[in-house]
């Protein structure tokens, strides 16, 4: 299990609570007990000072806890903090934004995570539940690779890294984006990691301040997307995702054509598994002197998180694991059907006109079973050869089940064939 505090993979010891043997921290019981059902996803925000990492997280907490999401995603959605401290952090951040205040600057430190269990997201079954583990450190930590190694080593554990870019705060976006990305790649390599195993999500923050750049076609679509980006638009998640990917493609073009950040893009595509884009406004409008003049209205802040959950290999793999069983189950079923049919015909022929139905059923079922088992076994062996894995008892039970269903259907088909021949 991943220790959320020291990031070591370890088995926690149980003694009046769960403790990490590496760092001695007490790990929330909910985290440990729900580890399989709610697997952790490290949410790693990378960005320069003042580009909105802390505010983005605060806004995310606000949306998850204060918005109408539970009403939209009925009946299952909820977000639970895993410890008193998490509860306090989420609550304080959400309340701060609600009161129109902004969080302070984050000091340079290796942060304690904030953990939030999110369940019932209307996506694939295996993507519905997870534990989001948020780490927030200062932008100064991303100015040098050595600082990243010291203060942001959590990024190595992230399946998708969110690169938060505030264009209004950049003098020379192509240069600064390239430098930031370069620093990140060096830092992860120095940590012994590999960015090619990570997805990169470029998140344009403070989007409310760049809408003027998006007013002309073809970028105006992004402006419309942002403007319509309140939480209520998330009612249909599948459709939402589709639109999100469209905007990502648009922002890809925006980054190349409008910003001229070609080297950044080339580097990103070479060094990361996949690259996506999103545009968010954590507050909905710009603050004045650290205070919000109007009520906070987060726009599209869930996009990076939805993207991360949808793309996270650790969650998708669970879906694929289930899908992988389809092949041998199909083999077993088809084998049962084909052989059962042959058996049924043979039974009819052997019985002639006398008791053909009985023979057809008996032989159909028998041959169907043989065929089903053989087909399943062939598929299984084929899988084992190419992808060694231990078979579980459940998988073993499904095999005769599939074969049996196939054989019964085969028997019935044979019986019908005989009846047809008789008729």
């Amino acid at each position, binding site marked *: 299990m991943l220790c959320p*505090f*020291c990031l070591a993979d370890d088995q926690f010891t149980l003694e*009046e*609570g769960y*403790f990490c043997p590496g*760092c*001695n*921290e*007490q790990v929330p019981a909910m985290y440990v007990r729900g580890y399989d059902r709610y697997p952790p996803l490290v949410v790693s925000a990378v960005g320069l*000072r*003042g580009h909105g990492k802390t505010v983005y997280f605060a806004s995310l907490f606000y949306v998850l806890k204060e918005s109408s999401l539970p009403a939209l995603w009925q009946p299952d959605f909820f977000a639970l903090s895993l*410890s*008193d*401290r998490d509860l306090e952090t989420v609550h304080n951040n959400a309340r701060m934004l609600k009161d129109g205040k*902004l*969080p*302070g*600057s*984050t*000091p*340079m*430190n*290796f*942060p*304690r995570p904030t953990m939030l269990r999110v369940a019932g997201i209307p996506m694939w079954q295996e993507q519905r539940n997870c534990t989001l583990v948020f780490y927030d450190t*200062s*932008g*100064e930590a991303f*100015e040098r690779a*050595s600082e990243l190694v*010291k*203060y942001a080593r959590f990024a190595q554990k992230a399946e998708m890294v969110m690169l938060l870019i505030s264009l209004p705060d950049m003098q020379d976006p192509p240069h600064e984006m390239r430098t930031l990305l370069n620093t990140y790649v060096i830092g992860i390599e120095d940590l012994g990691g590999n960015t090619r195993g990570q997805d990169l999500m470029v998140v344009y923050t403070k989007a409310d301040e760049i809408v003027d750049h998006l007013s002309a076609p073809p970028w105006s679509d992004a402006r419309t997307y942002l403007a319509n980006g309140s939480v209520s638009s998330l009612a249909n998640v599948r459709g939402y995702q589709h639109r999100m990917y469209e905007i990502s493609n648009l922002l890809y073009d925006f980054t190349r054509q409008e910003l001229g950040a070609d080297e950044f893009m080339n580097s990103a595509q070479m060094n990361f598994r996949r690259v996506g884009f999103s545009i968010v406004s954590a507050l909905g409008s710009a*603050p*004045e*002197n*650290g*205070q919000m003049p109007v009520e906070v209205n987060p726009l599209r802040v869930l996009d990076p998180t939805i993207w991360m959950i949808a793309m996270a290999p650790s969650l998708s793999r669970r879906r694929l694991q289930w899908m992988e069983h389809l092949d041998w189950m199909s083999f077993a079923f088809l084998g049962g059907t084909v052989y059962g049919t042959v058996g049924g015909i043979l039974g009819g022929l052997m019985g002639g006109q006398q008791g053909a139905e009985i023979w057809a059923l008996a032989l159909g079922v028998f041959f169907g079973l043989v065929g089903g088992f053989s087909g399943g076994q062939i598929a299984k062996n084929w899988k084992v050869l190419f992808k060694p894995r231990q078979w579980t008892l459940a998988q073993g039970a499904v095999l005769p089940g599939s074969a049996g269903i196939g054989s019964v259907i085969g028997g019935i088909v044979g019986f019908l064939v005989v009846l047809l021949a008789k008729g």
Partner: protein
Amino acid sequence: MIAEVSAWQQLYASVEREQSPHDREGFQTLFYSKSGLTESEVREMEARLVYFPSGIEAVKHLFSTLSTGKIMVAQIVRLTEPDRLGRRGRYLAHSLVFEPETFKRIESDPFLVFRQFRFITTVSAALGAGDWRTGDVPPASVEVTQAPTYGIETAKTWPLQGLKDLALLALRADRLASGRLAVAFIGEPTQVESALEAAFFAVPSAIRPHCSFDTYFHGCNLVDTYYWALGLLKSPSNRRLITVNTQSQRLDGVAASQPETAYERWAMALIERQQLETISRYRDHAFTICEWLEGRTRPDSLIDTTPSEVADSIFEVNHRLVPELLRRELEKALPAVLTSRVSQYLGSHAKPTDLFDRLREGFSLPKLTETLYLAYESQGARAPRHEEIQAIDWLLQRVDHASLRLLYACWTGQRDELYRELQLLNKDEYYKFVQTALRSRIVEPWTLPVPGRGDTFLDLYLATGGPGEYELAALVRALLRARETSCLSRLTPYVKMQPEQELRALEEIVAGQPETPGPFQRAVGDAVAALPPRRKGFVSRLLDL
């Protein structure tokens, strides 16, 4: 007493670009003393300079030892002005870094620094302190007034049990650190600092650098920056943290621990007796002695200046450790088989304070040899085991000790050597040795007479009861060999008590030594004459043998 020491400085804050000597905004080291601090040390310090605001206006105090061994004492204050983005949460840290030896000159006491040094608290003062061109800031001169009473007043505000618990936790800081266990002091930073000062009270200078602390750890991460003690506003969720409630002045949910080391026993005993001033004055002395008692350090100058009453108080609560120390010290000078004999002797014949003096002075081989001889003498000079006799041979090759050499000759049956050595003794030495030898019967009496000591020998010999059966002839021969013929007359009364065989032998001796005193000759002649006639023949002669 006023002490003035030098400390390197580091100034760290969140500033705007135009305020930065490095032309960048955000958290950064503005200046540091380049004469004493390396860049990697500065990076290490930066990782500790973390401050999260809370509802209180806390001033954070930090005490830590860097990986290079230098001591860091720092203060962090919150800056009220927001940054250009309107964000709060800025702060300014001013750190002093001491060489360990320099810090010892102020008793390794960070509270003296916190109380008496004027840390920089504003960005403008910080920016004015250093050189913008080089980023350098000169070392600071830290002048502190020391008094033995410092810390006592704070310690007195704690109940005895609470103070003992705090002291034990501080004394075990090193062990806690090895298990990454920490002590959480719950309260506001000023309360935490007061409790920490009480905890430091009984801690000697040598251990203090292990007792790193952060008086306001709010929001910080122990995984990244370990401290022995953390000041927290409320109880932590981690049950492995030992919790000290600064308001109720007791440990929460932890059973009181027992002292385990010599120093812990001493400190606990003195706290119990409320002798806080003795602890304050002599904790370093006591710690040195205790470490020496437990074999961890060599004695140093502090031991020589330890008052005997302090030494007494240490030995009183650690009496079992003294023989072990004695044995260890003896093993450095003597073979192991001799060590236990000497340590047993010293253990039973010397007072603890005398032993302490002897241990403090150190053992010389000649003194140890004398002690070893006394040990044998006190045990009747009985012959020890073979290995021990071999070890004495080793010892006598290095140290000359006449009496032990004689004992060695007795135990190994080297009569010629014994005779030669006995001749070298003066009268008193001869008397003393022969007395021991005769009393303990470690050697035949007739091996002891030497020229010029016939009467002395006979004084002692006759006092033990005179010659037994079959001893007189051999004795007479020995006295004659030593040319102590004149003393034979003192044996005259014993002649007639001798058996026939002995008388015949005496008859032969006297016949061959005409200078034998007349009375002795006559006594032998009379006694022989009174014997029945000798049997004739070969068989009879055989029977007479």
